[in-house]
């Protein structure tokens, strides 16, 4: 059976029903991630072809507990299911995913969806885990009672979605019977769920003690839980430095060779300068940090998939309450360590508008992965790679300190912003079952991150590097001029113009030049320094020599001041743009930029002067 128009299917279900893993299983890498019109709720679509050759377009809707939405996320799901979403036709088929292990909760939402009266297909997912619990579901009976087709899947197993694929080949099921919601709809649905469970679920043998009970005993323990959380985060930051090193060395060597190879092939002159100093030096300095960024993302994704993150939110809820926030803010803030843009977007799961606004305001303080190149460069140049007490890597320790400083500042800023607020902050967070992260899912997500990063390198970073190279090379110094050529160029002049503002915090004019392209993407500051210095110095024409160069040219006070600056500085257009989109107002953007700039300047000033005082 082949239709001219592809079948449009929406995956809908509770959070933690394994929907996204199933979606990845169904569509593989044929996915497109975009936003729903008008809101920044992520819209994931993918394509597949059924065994019989039918074209299907699948939308992965945000997880929801109910059609009575309490967050923008749930509102999108509600509107798409009702067929009322702007410019988006109602899906031909609602595929409602329920976790077989959590039928009581998930069937309630399913029954609520059934009231919409749309063609529906029920997917009982996680059938393997159900078996471990010693329970059995009478699928034909459930199908008869629900009045709609039911198929079973194991989203985490290869080929585990075969039944679902086969079901998509069959003709569309008739629309579910639309029932008017009873006056006491809430309890009525629960009564129906109990009825269904009594009819269709039987216990075959006593279930093994739930894994969750055992793990949660330790993970949610007041003392051990905190230790586990701290160790996990600490190891994460140590790993970013030590695991990535061999890969970074490889990439660095590769880029150097490429530069030499191209340099040798091209004739001496403008073109060689452009390619070697502009493109390769520019892209090379940033590309080297790909392993670190991927390792950071790998940790955050794995923590997220394993089900640990909500537990961390549980442990930190009271601490966040001290800052006037709830544990719910923890997840967006942790994502902001990878990048503030998805972090700010994920604040949409926070129901309280004021909590959400404050979380958005402090998200840029979380040290995003784009800051890593800058930190890594400066730490590499100024902090000796020593071991402390035999185990701790001193460089990793300094990095950890920078992260801690940012977190502490964020908590203080939140406290100040939330003073005088006595409203209730709902937590109401599900602690999902633990899951071994699916390698395939992790791989897919990491691959997407790598692609985004590389395309940034390929577009923004390379073009900025070229512009900067041009600014630093023209106009050429007049014949017979003394001093480095860059002093005569436009970039040199801009840098010197900015100097009066930044000299009090210890920046030289080269840093001032590098700050400008850093506005478009923080990590470009590193390649910009590479470009500026590679043009200044005659013998240093590639990026990897930046470390010894900086440690010989900058004072410790300047380096630490720049680090402090980077902890706070609002230098990222994408973040400011996403704040504008999420809050719908420029006022918040201005407030964010102004307070971050103020903090950055103050922190850098203090750091510079204190370091100078201490080091003499």
């Amino acid at each position: 059976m082949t239709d001219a128009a592809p079948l449009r299917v929406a995956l809908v279900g509770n959070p933690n029903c394994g929907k996204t893993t199933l979606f990845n299983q169904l569509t593989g890498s044929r996915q497109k991630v975009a936003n729903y019109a008008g809101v920044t709720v992520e819209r994931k679509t993918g394509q597949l072809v059924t065994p019989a050759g039918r074209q299907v377009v699948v939308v992965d809707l945000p997880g929801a507990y109910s059609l009575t939405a309490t967050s923008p996320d749930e509102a999108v799901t509600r509107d798409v299911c009702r067929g009322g979403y702007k410019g988006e036709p109602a899906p031909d088929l609602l595929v409602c995913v329920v976790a077989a292990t959590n039928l009581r909760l998930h069937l309630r939402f399913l029954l609520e969806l059934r009231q919409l009266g749309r063609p529906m297909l029920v997917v009982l997912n996680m059938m393997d885990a159900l078996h471990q619990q010693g329970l059995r579901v009478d699928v034909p009976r459930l199908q008869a009672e629900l009045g709609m087709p039911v198929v079973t899947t194991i989203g985490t197993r290869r080929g585990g979605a075969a039944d679902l694929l086969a079901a998509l080949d069959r003709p569309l099921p008739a629309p579910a019977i639309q029932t008017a919601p009873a006056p006491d709809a809430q309890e009525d649905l629960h009564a129906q769920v109990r009825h269904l469970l009594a009819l269709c679920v039987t216990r075959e043998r006593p279930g093994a003690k739930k894994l969750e009970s055992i793990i949660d005993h330790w993970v949610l323990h007041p003392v051990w839980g905190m230790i586990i959380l701290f160790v996990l985060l600490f190891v994460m930051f140590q790993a970013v430095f030590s695991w990535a090193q061999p890969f970074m060395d490889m990439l660095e060597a590769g880029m150097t060779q490429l530069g030499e190879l191209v340099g040798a092939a091209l004739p001496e002159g403008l073109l060689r300068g452009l390619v070697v100093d502009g493109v390769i030096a520019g892209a090379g300095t940033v590309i080297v940090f790909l392993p670190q960024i991927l390792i950071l993302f790998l940790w955050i994704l794995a923590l997220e998939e394993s089900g640990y993150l909500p537990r961390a939110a549980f442990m930190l809820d009271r601490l966040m309450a001290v800052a006037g926030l709830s544990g719910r803010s923890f997840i967006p803030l942790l994502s902001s360590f990878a990048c503030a843009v998805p972090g700010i977007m994920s604040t949409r799961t926070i129901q309280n508008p004021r909590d959400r606004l404050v979380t958005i305001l402090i998200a840029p303080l979380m040290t995003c992965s784009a800051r890593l190149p800058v930190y890594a460069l400066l730490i590499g140049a100024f902090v000796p790679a020593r071991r402390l007490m035999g185990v701790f890597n001193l460089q990793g320790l300094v990095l950890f300190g920078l992260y801690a400083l940012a977190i502490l500042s964020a908590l203080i800023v939140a406290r100040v912003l939330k003073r005088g607020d006595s409203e209730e902050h709902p937590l109401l967070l599900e602690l999902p079952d633990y899951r071994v992260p699916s390698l395939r899912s992790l791989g897919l997500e990491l691959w997407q991150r790598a692609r985004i990063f590389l395309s940034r390198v390929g577009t923004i970073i390379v073009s900025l590097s070229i512009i900067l190279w041009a600014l630093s090379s023209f106009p050429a110094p007049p014949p017979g001029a003394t001093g480095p050529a860059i002093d005569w160029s436009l970039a040199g002049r801009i840098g010197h113009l900015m100097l009066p503002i930044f000299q009090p915090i210890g920046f030289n004019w080269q840093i001032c030049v590098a700050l400008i392209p850093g506005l478009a993407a923080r990590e470009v500051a590193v390649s910009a320094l590479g470009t500026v210095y590679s043009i200044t110095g005659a013998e240093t024409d590639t990026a990897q020599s930046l470390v010894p160069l900086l440690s010989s040219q900058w004072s410790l006070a300047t380096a630490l001041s720049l680090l402090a600056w980077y902890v706070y500085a609002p230098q990222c257009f994408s973040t400011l743009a996403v704040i504008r989109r999420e809050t719908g107002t420029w006022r918040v953007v201005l407030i964010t930029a102004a307070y971050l700039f103020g903090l950055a300047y103050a922190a850098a000033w203090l750091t510079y002067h204190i370091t100078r005082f201490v080091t003499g």
Partner: protein
Amino acid sequence: MLLNSLPLSGCGVIDHVNERTPHDPVARRLGELGFVPGEAVRVVAFGPLGHDPMAVEIGFTRFALRRSEAERIVLRGSKENPQASSEGLSYEVAGQE
């Protein structure tokens, strides 16, 4: 007896959920998450500071609730009974309620 007065591993059966204000969104969401009359609940863990929040098991699901949220949930006049924890939460028993 209120849910937030249960000790660690303490169990109870929900009698009803109080609305703090008319159309209390928190009470409504609690209902949607399965906190409805007749369901058995068990306290799994307390947060590290001031026993807040609390982790509560209902059916096969665990939720983190602040004490102020748990305060809305009124339990039937039951005593804590750690033995009933695993049995009282299975589908069969709840199904007969």
